[in-house]
């Protein structure tokens, strides 16, 4: 069974069909890429996966569980975590706290523990903090722990958001244009990071504009254009695909 399974999914905004009849399977352990020109419906697809929007038709399931009607929070419990195309960090909190929030579902202290600062609360806080520091190191930004998120450089913020998503120990990680705004050397680091993430056992689904990066990184790629999936295959298949060439030459991103 695939970890993520979309069957004929459609999403309309009024007269605009942002996602049109898309069928897609992502296998566990894959690094799967989604590409397509601006406005092709890539981010909308992610927003359907985390229930920011409801899809109008079709089925989506994560590890066999249908997500129709589930809230964002319930989907997070299924092991789906994400980053956003336009960063959504907790700007006025430290980098460390940002990551600790990501660990929310991994902690079990309840309201009584929180009110009374019980032994469980303290133990979990210590453990959460230790893990958060470890994650900051893992994504390559050790040392920024106490800085406010919003004072960090753009590239650091992108990594911090990935660290926050990883803190939930996701089975499926959704990355929306993680390389946007990064310089070539930062992109190389990101490539290595995403591979390292996959090696920890997570499945990565990523939206990316940088063709070089996607071709290098992903085992499979799906191409969206005007909400429709026009191609899917390995990087070499995608590179040769006539409709992809047409879409990219016809409507450069």
């Amino acid at each position, binding site marked *: 069974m695939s970890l993520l399974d979309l069957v004929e999914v459609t999403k309309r905004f009024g007269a605009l069909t942002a996602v049109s009849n898309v069928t897609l399977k992502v296998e566990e352990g894959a690094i799967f890429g989604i590409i397509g020109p601006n406005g092709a419906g890539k981010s909308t697809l992610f927003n359907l996966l*985390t229930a*920011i929007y409801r899809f109008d038709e079709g089925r989506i399931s994560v590890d066999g569980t249908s997500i129709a009607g589930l*809230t*964002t*929070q319930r989907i*997070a*419990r299924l092991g789906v*975590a*994400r980053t*956003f195309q336009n960063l*959504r*960090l*907790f*700007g*006025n*909190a430290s980098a460390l*706290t940002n990551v*600790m*929030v*990501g660990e*929310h*579902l991994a*902690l079990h*202290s309840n*309201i009584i*523990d*929180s*009110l*009374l*600062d019980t032994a469980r*609360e303290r133990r*979990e*806080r210590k453990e*959460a903090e230790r893990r958060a520091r470890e994650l900051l190191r893992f994504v*390559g*930004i*050790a*040392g*920024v722990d106490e*800085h*406010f998120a*919003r*004072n*960090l*450089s753009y590239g*650091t913020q992108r990594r911090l958001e990935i660290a*926050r998503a990883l803190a*939930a120990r996701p089975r499926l990680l959704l990355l929306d244009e993680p390389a946007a705004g990064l310089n070539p050397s930062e992109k190389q680091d990101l490539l290595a990071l995403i591979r390292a993430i996959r090696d920890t056992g997570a499945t990565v689904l990523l939206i990316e504009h940088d063709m070089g990066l996607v071709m290098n990184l992903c085992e499979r790629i799906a191409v969206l254009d005007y909400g429709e999936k026009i191609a899917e295959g390995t990087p070499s298949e995608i590179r040769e695909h006539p409709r992809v060439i047409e879409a990219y030459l016809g409507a450069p991103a």
Partner: protein
Amino acid sequence: MIYAYAFVAIAACVAIERFHNRKAKIAIALALAAFLAVGPRFYGNEAIFSVLADAAVYVMLALGLNIVVGFAGLLDLGYAAFFAIGAYTYGMLASPQFGLHLPFWALLFLAAALAALFGALLGAPTLRLHGDYLAIVTLGFGEIVPQIFQNLTKYTGGPNGIAALDVPTFFGHSFGASVMPYYYIALVGIVLALWISRNLRESRLGRAWMAIREDELAAKHAGIDVLRSKLAAFAIGASFSGIGGVLFAAKLALVSPDLFGFQVSVLIVSMLVLGGMGNIVGVVVGSLILTIVNSALLPQLNSLVDASFHTTVDLSNIHFLIYGAILVGIMLFRPEGLLPNRERRAELRNSGEVEAEA
């Protein structure tokens, strides 16, 4: 003089805020507690400690509202409603009204529970609203609750309220006419409220509140149950107010609907704004300053004016003008409040420290 106590308390709070050494902070806090506990043996009179006991109740209220507004970021303009619920719990259950004379100590807990319950009941349908909309609904609630108490004349004594409330006892000893027991109970209440506030801020729930306040959508993606977390903030905040209400009613031996109007909610919000929303020590300072201005400075100013100009003006009529002036002044010169926390200072002043590149 009352200002001596207020000054020492405020100075100690500022020192606690300025020192970075944890041991120094604790030492100052303990010294302040000892001073406030032992001081009355040497200096002061009933009138002073009556005002200080009221101030302490307001500090508790402000700490409770701080959980709702400062921690969870939910603007609640009807917080006095829970104060009223606490006070009427005592008024109805420890008075000749129904001939029920339940013990003060039990009613402290009952009022906390009832206020929390009503907090949750109000929260459940309204917490889906955001920002201004939530503020308006809570404002309405704050108006409706005293109205209900006013109109349920059969149970609540209507506009006159309920008088001759029971005088509490402590292991058989009546509090008598002294205000000192209320002063000490309120001090213990503050210590507990401070402890709980600190616990919450550093907790899993506290981090969830921060996340909701900063970016609700991102919070949901971390698996946070936004509605439940907000309900928890409402209920916990309300329970502080319920306890404050019992203390207030027992000390005054009276409840009436006009004690819990909109001006009380505004006063408490002003305390947060003045002191520094979200910051526990700042909130304490803000509420001390405003209560002292309210209960000591203004009356004295009033008699001074009357004596100098042979008038009989009533300065209490311009309380709102004074709060207004304080709030506008704060917004202009120090929008983050007198003693803000690091987060809020960063939020309102765009000059936060910049990353030393990793």
